[in-house]
């Protein structure tokens, strides 16, 4: 996951690139990373604090925007028995945090063809029979850094309610912290993803406008436009991009149409 490249700096310096940029006069606080004490500037996220301390992320870091689910973190606070969970790229360090990254937690994903399994809940039950090992301890929900009602969607799956499971699990970023805490050893997030796929494939109606557009694309309606773009020089392309017509933000639906209509 990560390796220490240098020892804790005695006097914090301003860092650049993927390293933390430290405001002048910033205070430092003590944190414990995998059991070792480091002084890191307050206000940094856990991820930046670890990088400040000299750790270098090869895996277990992705978008740094709280969406990709690559940097789940588990921590405790000094003097408190409770476990806390978060994303390292989103959670700000506090004094006396005891930190470790859980960049990946093994959770087996069932093999299936969405076209073959059909849209019934029994398909999910057959691929993930572990669902029925749930004892409703709710540790999954407590561990979720996205505040997803994990127990709620697992229960919905057992109840055969795929739509409810798909909607409850919509914010899941598949970080795996739920699976790391499950006493029933359920790979919750994989089951939820299957529910959302079945919901999209078999339950939600198809979007008519999308169908029309795909047909137009497949019929070659846009080929000439693409060819035109491909032949342009980089400078012309940039100019075209900068000068493009753009719908104003928050324009009322149906209130705007471009002046140039030949591509419509």
């Amino acid at each position, binding site marked *: 996951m990560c390796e220490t490249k240098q020892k804790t700096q005695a006097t914090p310096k301003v860092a650049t690139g993927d390293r933390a940029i430290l405001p002048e006069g910033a205070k430092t606080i003590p944190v414990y990373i995998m059991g070792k004490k480091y002084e890191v500037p307050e206000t940094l996220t856990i991820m930046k604090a670890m990088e400040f301390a000299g750790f270098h992320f090869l895996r277990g870091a992705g978008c740094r925007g709280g969406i990709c689910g690559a940097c789940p973190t588990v921590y405790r606070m000094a003097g408190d028995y409770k476990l806390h969970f978060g994303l390292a790229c989103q959670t700000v360090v506090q004094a006396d945090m005891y930190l470790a990254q859980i960049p990946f937690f093994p959770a087996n994903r069932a093999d299936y063809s969405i076209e073959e399994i059909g849209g019934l*809940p*029994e398909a999910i039950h057959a691929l993930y029979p572990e669902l*029925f090992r*749930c*004892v*409703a*301890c*709710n540790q999954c*929900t*407590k561990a979720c850094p996205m505040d997803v*009602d994990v*127990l*709620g969607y*697992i*229960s919905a799956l*057992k*109840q*055969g*309610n795929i739509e409810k499971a798909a909607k409850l699990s919509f914010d899941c970023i598949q970080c795996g912290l739920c699976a790391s805490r499950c*006493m029933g050893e359920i790979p919750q997030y994989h089951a939820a993803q299957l529910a959302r796929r079945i919901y999209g494939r078999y339950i939600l109606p198809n979007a008519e406008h999308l169908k029309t557009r795909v047909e137009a694309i497949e019929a070659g309606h846009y080929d000439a436009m693409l060819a035109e773009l491909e032949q342009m020089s980089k400078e012309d392309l940039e100019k075209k991009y900068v000068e493009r017509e753009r719908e104003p933000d928050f324009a009322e639906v149906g209130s705007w149409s471009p002046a140039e209509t030949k591509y419509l």
Partner: protein
Amino acid sequence: MKISYYPGCTLKTKAKNLDIAAVASLEALGVEVEEIDRWNCCGAVHSLTADDLIHQVGPVRNLIRAKEMGAEKLITLCSMCYNTLARANQIMKTDPVKRDTINRFMDEEIDYNGEVEVVHYLSFLKEAIGWEKLKQQVKVPLTGLKIGSYYGCTLQRPAEVGIEPFGHFELMNDMFRSLGATVMGFADADKCCGSYQVLSSAPGENSASANIINTAAGQGIEALATSCPLCEFNLGKQQQQMLDKGNIEQNVPTYYFSQLLAVALGLDSELCHFELNDRQSLTLLENKNYLVAA
């Protein structure tokens, strides 16, 4: 009148015929049924191990959901859900040490001290509607239907949570009398259906359920009624295979009590989902001319 309702997972999947007919019947009787929010599995089987409290967490969490909704009573109708919910509730009411441990473990929830009463659908029917009033609401009397009330194990065991004392089957019997059926005494009314043994025996080879069907047939019972999806699986869904293998001599169509209630109340038979029962079940009702258009 409004009542909080816990359905249970099986009632939303394999035993929709138990759930939908029951809810529709109560609504036809003027009761508004409110399914509790965010419910989870009841636990299915009560854990008898004294220190195995994790298996009480599931049922207690459902009772907390009911308490949060301000419910004084929570009705349920699956025998197994009733049993696990009522027994977990018993622990929360009577055992302060276990109650405290469970409440502390569920520190994200409000404390629960057994405030909600778990009531079986049949008990609720008697208390809230009453047999006389039910009788007046019957549109299609089940005249001439020789019915056996089959309680199985978990409605009456243990006695502390039983819907009525051992050897008494009056709740279901009285309901069927109100519906105009001929209630037959049934010697095997509280015999075990074979429960999960069906998983380890070949299809149709579960002797416990075969014996029950044979006893019923021998007593001249035409139809059996249950409130348990596992009993229905063993007695109803396995029936054709028991017959094919020669383990029973004749069919005794097996129903959820709620399906026959809905039929007698004149509700649309589609609400009863007879397609989920053994094929003989629908045939018997058609032959008896009970399935009038709604």
